[in-house]
């Protein structure tokens, strides 16, 4: 079949999965299987469509649509194909995982869960392939709505409902801005079709306006700081396989929007666009991970880390856009390559980590890392898979996170050597901040893995956990293998992504790999070879083994003793480091980013009252940006909403007056 037919069938099968899952809602078990298995089939078909696009080139489908809004156009080029492939892989893994995981929701709406989940995936597939602004917005809204129902799925929890409200509020601020951007384009071109936007020679001021509107609009959905505050609340509230999709792919559709509009349709004509994207990228990366560090809710930690990763992706996008504007093809290719590579990587490992977190929550029924611990012995496979994810996201060589960050460093290097004052000045600073982010990510995921899976179990539930069923392990395992492949297979993946990156930047392709090495540009002396790293690390294992053998260490043997040393006192699990205090020195060292707020202060009485310095208090770190930037934006919108609401007073005579006034204004406008 032709790729576009495959894509449409994939969407249809997702639709069928949704409807059937809803029909079988009376029998949760059937609904789970129908939704999961059909979802897997649909994903496989979607993946096939993407492969055909990569092999045979872009395809388009044009159908007559609603006359006023132009034709219904679907267009899958390499970039869209990459998005489709990414969605398909994640959808496949999560569908497989959901067959067992959704057991949690048996008789609590597993059927409805399958319905919304499959609709959500179908909407995402259409978002990344629509090439008409009107239909794009329709699919965009369907995606938002479907995901909203996933976020508030656990309606009995008050915080889920609140998170959902926050999400839909900010998502709609974003959508309003995107609509405005498209509307401006429509006013200037007279159509809603992407192809005419691309060809329209817009005046620079209009282009700037459209870009800023779209960047902020899509940025709200991507979760850039300071519009991120819904993300760490909404993503964890959804069922875990849906969280994996929300954090793994949905926020990437927003990056897709930024790139499609800013780079493809508007052509990134001036370099300050790129700098704006780069700046927001850095800000999101640093603050996202800084706030992730202090979380003790495992899923919220992962969600904050998504803010950080979106930041890293946007840094690459920004550099690529600067390269395009400054007509530096090498910079454009390396920048976009780093962005695309990290986008795929993040989809894989964040999907994996969310599903791993889901597996743990499935067994312990808590999100709090303080009540976990020691799960590696009870859930060995989950633990191993989660460790692969944690190492990938911490950019441990030779896994995939390292490769994309390496390309980002290289793009900053290329940018700093180019004849661009701004990048020359800020390139090294960006490198420094990226290194800081890298160190904080490692800290964050040592904490996440360490306090969840190792050390002593800190609650009864953690002591009784058992390994999760095979389908969940398989779902996670696929992504773990993906992370390993994207790391070790860098010499295969890089030229492929490099081609797409060059296509985006509209520049000739670069040679980015030779044999088992990759490099940022032809002739560069900076090379990286992940397969060699693995081979050498394995070969070097002979050094410690030889040392041990030579010094007779193998004969010594080992025994296991019950408790760690505790200064001679009896050991208790509370003595180990917990999730709440692990990052505490970090909070003190980087105090400007946080504000240690005193929650409670009780003056002492009795003899202690004589000493004015003695106080009991309970400090808690509070993200500063959220308090001073995000909250005000939110409360302004809510305030405006309430003001506008007062127009709806329910009095029919007032409504008649509105109609009358509107008519009068229209008539005056027409006959003036």
């Amino acid at each position: 079949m032709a790729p576009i037919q495959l894509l449409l069938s994939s969407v249809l099968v997702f639709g069928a999965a949704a409807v059937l899952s809803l029909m079988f809602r009376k029998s949760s078990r059937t609904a789970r299987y129908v939704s999961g298995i059909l979802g897997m089939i649909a994903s496989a078909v979607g993946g096939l469509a993407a492969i055909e696009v990569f092999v045979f080139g872009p395809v388009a489908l044009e159908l007559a649509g609603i006359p006023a809004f132009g034709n219904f156009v679907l267009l899958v080029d390499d970039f869209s194909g990459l998005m489709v492939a990414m969605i398909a892989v994640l959808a496949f893994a999560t569908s497989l995982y959901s067959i067992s995981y959704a057991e949690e929701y048996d008789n609590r709406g597993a059927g409805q869960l399958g319905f919304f989940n499959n609709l959500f995936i179908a909407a995402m597939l259409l978002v990344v392939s629509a090439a008409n602004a009107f239909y794009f917005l329709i699919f965009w809204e369907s995606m938002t709505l479907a995901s909203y129902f996933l976020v508030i799925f656990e309606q009995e929890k008050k915080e889920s409902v609140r998170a959902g409200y926050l999400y839909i509020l900010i998502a709609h601020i974003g959508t309003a801005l995107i609509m405005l951007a498209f509307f401006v384009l429509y006013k200037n071109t007279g159509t809603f079709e992407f192809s005419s936007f691309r060809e329209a020679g817009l005046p620079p001021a209009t282009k700037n306006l459209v870009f800023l509107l779209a960047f902020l609009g899509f940025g709200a959905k991507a979760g850039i700081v300071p519009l991120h505050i819904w993300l760490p609340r909404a993503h964890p509230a959804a069922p875990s396989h849906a969280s994996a999709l929300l954090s793994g792919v949905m926020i990437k559709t927003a990056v897709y929007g930024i790139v499609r509009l800013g780079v493809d349709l508007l052509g990134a004509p001036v370099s300050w666009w790129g700098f704006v994207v780069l700046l927001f990228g850095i800000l999101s990366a640093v603050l996202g991970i800084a706030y992730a560090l202090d979380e003790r809710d495992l899923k919220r930690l992962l969600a904050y880390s998504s803010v950080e990763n979106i930041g890293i992706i946007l840094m690459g996008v920004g550099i690529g856009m600067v390269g395009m504007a400054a007509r530096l093809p090498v910079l454009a290719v390396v920048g976009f390559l780093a962005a695309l590579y990290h986008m795929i990587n993040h989809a894989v490992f964040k999907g994996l980590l969310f599903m791993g977190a889901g597996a743990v929550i499935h067994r312990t029924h808590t999100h709090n890392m303080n009540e976990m611990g020691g799960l590696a012995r009870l859930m060995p496979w989950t633990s191993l898979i989660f460790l692969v994810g944690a190492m990938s996201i911490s950019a441990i060589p030779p896994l995939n996170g390292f490769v994309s960050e390496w390309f980002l460093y290289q793009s900053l290097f290329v940018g700093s050597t180019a004849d661009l004052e701004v990048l020359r000045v800020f390139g090294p600073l960006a490198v420094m901040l990226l290194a800081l982010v890298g160190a904080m990510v490692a800290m964050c995921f040592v904490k996440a893995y360490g306090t969840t899976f190792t050390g002593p179990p800190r609650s009864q539930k953690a002591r009784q956990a058992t390994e999760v069923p095979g389908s969940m392990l398989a779902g996670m395992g696929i992504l773990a293998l993906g992370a390993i492949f994207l790391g070790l297979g860098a010499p295969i993946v890089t030229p492929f992504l490099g081609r797409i990156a060059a296509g985006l930047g509209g520049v000739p392709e670069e040679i980015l790999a030779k044999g088992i090495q990759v490099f940022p540009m032809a002739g560069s002396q900076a090379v990286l070879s992940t397969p060699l790293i693995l081979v050498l690390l394995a070969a070097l294992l002979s050094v410690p083994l030889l040392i041990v053998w030579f010094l007779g260490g193998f004969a010594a043997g080992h025994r296991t003793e019950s408790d760690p040393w505790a200064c001679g006192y009896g050991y208790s699990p509370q003595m180990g480091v917990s999730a709440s205090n692990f990052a505490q020195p970090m909070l003190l060292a980087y105090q400007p980013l946080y504000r240690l707020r005193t929650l409670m202060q009780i003056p002492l009485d009795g003899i202690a009252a004589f000493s004015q310095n003695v106080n009991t208090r309970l400090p808690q770190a509070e993200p500063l940006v959220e308090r001073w930037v995000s909250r005000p934006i939110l409360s302004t919108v809510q305030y405006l909403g309430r003001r506008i609401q007062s127009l709806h007073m329910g009095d029919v005579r007032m409504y008649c007056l509105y109609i009358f006034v509107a008519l009068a204004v229209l008539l005056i406008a027409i006959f003036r």
Partner: protein
Amino acid sequence: MTTGSLILIGILQALLVALVAPLFSGFARVLRAKMHSRHGPPILQNYYDLFKLMRRQEILPAQGTAIFRLAPFLTIVAAQLAAMIIPILVTQSPFGLVGDMILVVYLLMLIRFFISLSGLTSGSTFGGMGARRELLMSALTEPLMLLVLFVMALLAGSTNLGVISNGIATGRVPYYATVWLGMISFAFVAFVEAGRLPFDVSEAEQELQEGAMTEYSGRGLALMKWGAYMKQLTVVSLFLAVFIPFGSMSTLSIPAAVLALAVFLLKAAALYLIVAILENAMARVRFIKAPSVTWIALGVGLLSYAFYLVRI
């Protein structure tokens, strides 16, 4: 130089670092003792300790997982790979075909990742404390390390360590203010790595890196300590390779190799001597004050970067 001889030199470098790392650490202990007016251990004491520990039975904590047993091996392996990439005896990166300075910095990160994870795994209070302190140090020093290396890479024109080393050695990158300031700033990092004072009590190193090793014993402890010594020497040799590469071979020959080896040992010894003097001249401060010290270093690093911008 041919690829074959470079590979040979890379392997030699790895062996060199593995063999002499405990010696330098022992040297530092002796110097410290002399400055405290103590008799101190013999200079080979570290080897005696390692040999003895290696033959002792290993006691594993019940909480420990496979990571606890793997971490010592991974520490050594990663430090060895870094030693093969850093130009120690030559002014080229022997294993430059594997990776560049970014890989070296991230290999150091790999070591930190597993050392701190093993600390958490043990379930011990001290292990956990050591783990989080280790990671805080990385968050304080790594940005600085990469900033300085990046500025040096910009001066030399590549992130390949061999190119940087060669640039300084041949005078293509002259010693001007940027390089001097970068050197001072990077020296702080090497100092924190090698000495760990002023946040540490000498001869009672449980507070920092070794905090994470609290639950190790026997073979595991021996390997972990050996790995830590190797890592220290790796950071020192990274400093020497980037800022003081003189004496390293530019063409391959046996006399040049012997000379390069001797010069490297002397340079490293001189550096350990300076570290020993500095750490004993400084008051010991609480760990939580560490940021104030590293922020001075960061200031110097930023100054180096500012000088690079105005091309001084």
